[in-house]
């Protein structure tokens, strides 16, 4: 009974306790904010990494795609390979969707302010409908965001823009004799056979759409005032030329496309390099009809089935050593491991803040116990036991920890919820961006408040407060009443 009364009274009357509370509060708030931001970054990054990759990826090192032969020795088409995969009962039950893709490096060219810009990109040929079923595609499109049936179809305004562009170039070419003349599109309705010879290629007559990464199509730079300005370099309907390697001898091949949409994953790596084009068109350009270089697979239950599916797929492709089968986590393993390691180290370093708070509790408690020598003697003369005295100071430490944690938790959550406003205020105060958005391609600082993490932090902090109050409490408990009463 007396322990509770004295704990509460000491808390109310000792200004030194306030310092302990502030120490714990700041430590807890910092840990919560850092964890929320790290978790926000990590979750968003994992979502994005997973999002675009699909659950399981099968790809081949052969540049001309998978070479899976049937019993007659004929190469199977991607659709036939998928059909064979689905004929396996283990895979059929577990695979939700499969889509074939071709992934290759390429050079992207487009006109911008009268000059031709060239950028290295990763061009991916997809079937948009089946790719959307695998997930991690349609939700990142800008115009067709979240569409169940995304396509490379051009909107009327895009075609209008294309026509306007063409007239501009014709006028420009006629007057200025500038290149590239190849960008002319002759007959929009005919599909000529692929021509792999350099300088003799005819632009694909039918107009094909392409989805380009947001950062490819939008330039960011700082103006005179230091503000980040975003300029559209490629609008919907603008022409792009993709040059890659194709055929058995890997000769340069190219094709022209019109921008129909943007991919905006907010992952700079993807947004700066990904260009999606129709699979069949990329097959024609590269001279690999009915071929694919990768399969993207979505599982019904990834966590449950990832191991058995990859094992079964390895069996399925056992005669094709060039085929690699990996889950999205295996694909991004080093990056994911780096995030976890970074988070662990940061937490360890930050827990030192709570450690510092703990040492301040130790110092302050030692002072308080010295100050309370006489009171300890009085309580013992009135019948208080050693254990009772120990409990007073342990309880006092716990109470300080709980009060500090409560305030720290509220402060941490408040800072986390308002971190973007705080960042803006700090940036304007210091004149330097605390969170440069052009580096991360996040609109705002991502945060993720996890109640379990907060609980762990709070328990850790209260435990630390109690641990550091244990030594002074032990000293207090062992004090002889007579010695304590004589202490002045």
């Amino acid at each position: 009974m007396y322990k509770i009364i004295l704990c509460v009274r000491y808390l109310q009357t000792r200004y030194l306790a306030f310092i302990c509370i502030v120490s714990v509060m700041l430590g807890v708030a910092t840990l919560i904010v850092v964890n929320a931001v790290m978790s926000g970054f990590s979750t968003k990054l994992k979502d994005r990494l997973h999002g675009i990759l699909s659950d399981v990826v099968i790809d081949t090192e052969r540049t001309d795609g998978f070479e899976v032969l049937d019993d007659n020795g004929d190469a199977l088409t991607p659709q036939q390979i998928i059909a064979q995969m689905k004929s396996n009962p283990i895979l059929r039950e577990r695979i939700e969707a499969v889509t074939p893709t071709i992934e290759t490096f390429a050079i992207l060219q487009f006109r911008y302010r009268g000059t031709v810009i060239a950028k290295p990109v990763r061009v991916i040929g997809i079937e948009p409908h089946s790719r959307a079923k695998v997930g991690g595609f349609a939700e990142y499109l800008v115009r067709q965001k979240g569409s169940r049936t995304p396509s490379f179809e051009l909107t009327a305004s895009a075609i209008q823009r294309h026509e306007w562009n063409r007239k501009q170039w014709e006028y420009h070419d006629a007057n200025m004799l500038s290149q590239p003349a190849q960008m002319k599109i002759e007959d929009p309705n005919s599909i000529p056979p692929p021509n792999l010879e350099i300088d003799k290629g005819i632009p694909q007559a039918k107009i094909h759409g392409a989805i380009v990464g947001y950062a490819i199509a939008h330039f960011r730079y700082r103006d005179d005032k230091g503000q980040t300005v975003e300029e559209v370099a490629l609008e919907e309907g603008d022409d792009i030329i993709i040059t890659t390697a194709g055929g058995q001898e890997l000769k340069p091949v190219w094709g022209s496309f019109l921008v129909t949409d943007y991919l905006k994953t907010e992952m700079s790596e993807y947004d700066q390099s990904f260009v999606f084009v129709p699979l069949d068109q990329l097959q024609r350009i590269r001279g690999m009809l009915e071929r694919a270089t990768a399969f993207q697979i979505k599982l019904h239950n990834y966590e449950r089935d990832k191991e058995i599916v990859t094992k079964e797929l390895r069996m399925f492709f056992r005669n094709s050593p060039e085929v690699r089968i990996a889950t999205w986590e295996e694909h991004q393993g080093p990056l994911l491991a780096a995030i976890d390691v970074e988070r662990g180290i940061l937490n360890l370093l930050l827990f030192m803040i709570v450690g510092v708070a703990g040492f301040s509790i130790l110092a302050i408690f030692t002072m308080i116990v010295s100050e309370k020598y006489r009171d300890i003697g009085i309580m013992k003369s009135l019948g208080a036991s050693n254990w009772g005295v120990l409990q007073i100071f342990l309880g006092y430490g716990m109470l300080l920890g709980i009060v500090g944690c409560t305030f720290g938790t509220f402060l941490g959550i408040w800072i986390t919820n308002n971190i973007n406003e705080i960042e803006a205020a700090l940036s304007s105060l210091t004149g330097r961006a605390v969170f440069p958005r052009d580096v991360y391609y996040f609109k705002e600082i991502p945060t993720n408040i996890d109640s379990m993490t907060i609980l762990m932090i709070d328990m850790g902090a209260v435990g630390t407060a109690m641990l550091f109050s244990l030594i002074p409490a032990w000293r207090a408990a062992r004090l002889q009443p007579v010695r304590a009463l004589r202490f002045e």
Partner: protein
Amino acid sequence: MLIARDIKKTYRRHAVEIRVLNGLNLEVQTGEFLSIVGASGSGKSTLLHLLGILDTPDSGEILLDGKRIDSLPSKERDQLRNRTFGYIFQFYHLLPELSALDNVLMPAYIGHSWVSWWPTRRQWRRRAYELLEKVGLSHRTKHRPRELSGGEMQRTAIARALLMNPRVLLADEPTGNLDAESGRGIMQLLREINRDECVTIIMVTHNLEIVPMTDRVVRISSGRITDDPPLLQPVPTTPLLLAI
């Protein structure tokens, strides 16, 4: 009732040994008001602390009703300090964070868990109020020690010592820090408690003027009782008290 038998106590500071009590013997009767006098450093307070099991002797034994109490397990010693002995100190020793009422109630707080306290809290508060009224402080119950005078603090300490109905009251220079008038008031209060509630009081003092108010006086010198005169009869007629 309370017997100290062949008590020896030595304090050690660095390499120096100071023998304070050297084979001391004392017997206190139930209901007696005993005063122990002696020069500073003679061991009066040490004896009081040993009798009240706040400290342990190097050798010898303390007996209460024939039972040895100085070697009891700490839990039983704590209970004896809480229920059988009441302490009054020269410097009052009130807890500064608590009101006068809470200070008086502190032995009850210590003697009860939260569960056992709750059903009996009203009767304990009533007793604390009664005791504060008895010592003339019913109007000061909510005041903190720093808001009370020396005499009032000592009265609060007496009320605290009486809360658990102790059988023995141990007073260490109870008037040592008070002016003559306040000291006289405290002594009258102790006398009343001794007489009305039959509480055995053992008082240590070096103030010879208040000694005649007690039943018996013993003197400590060289670590032993050197003078144990018969009971002074009757207390109110002593010349010293009349002079006061």
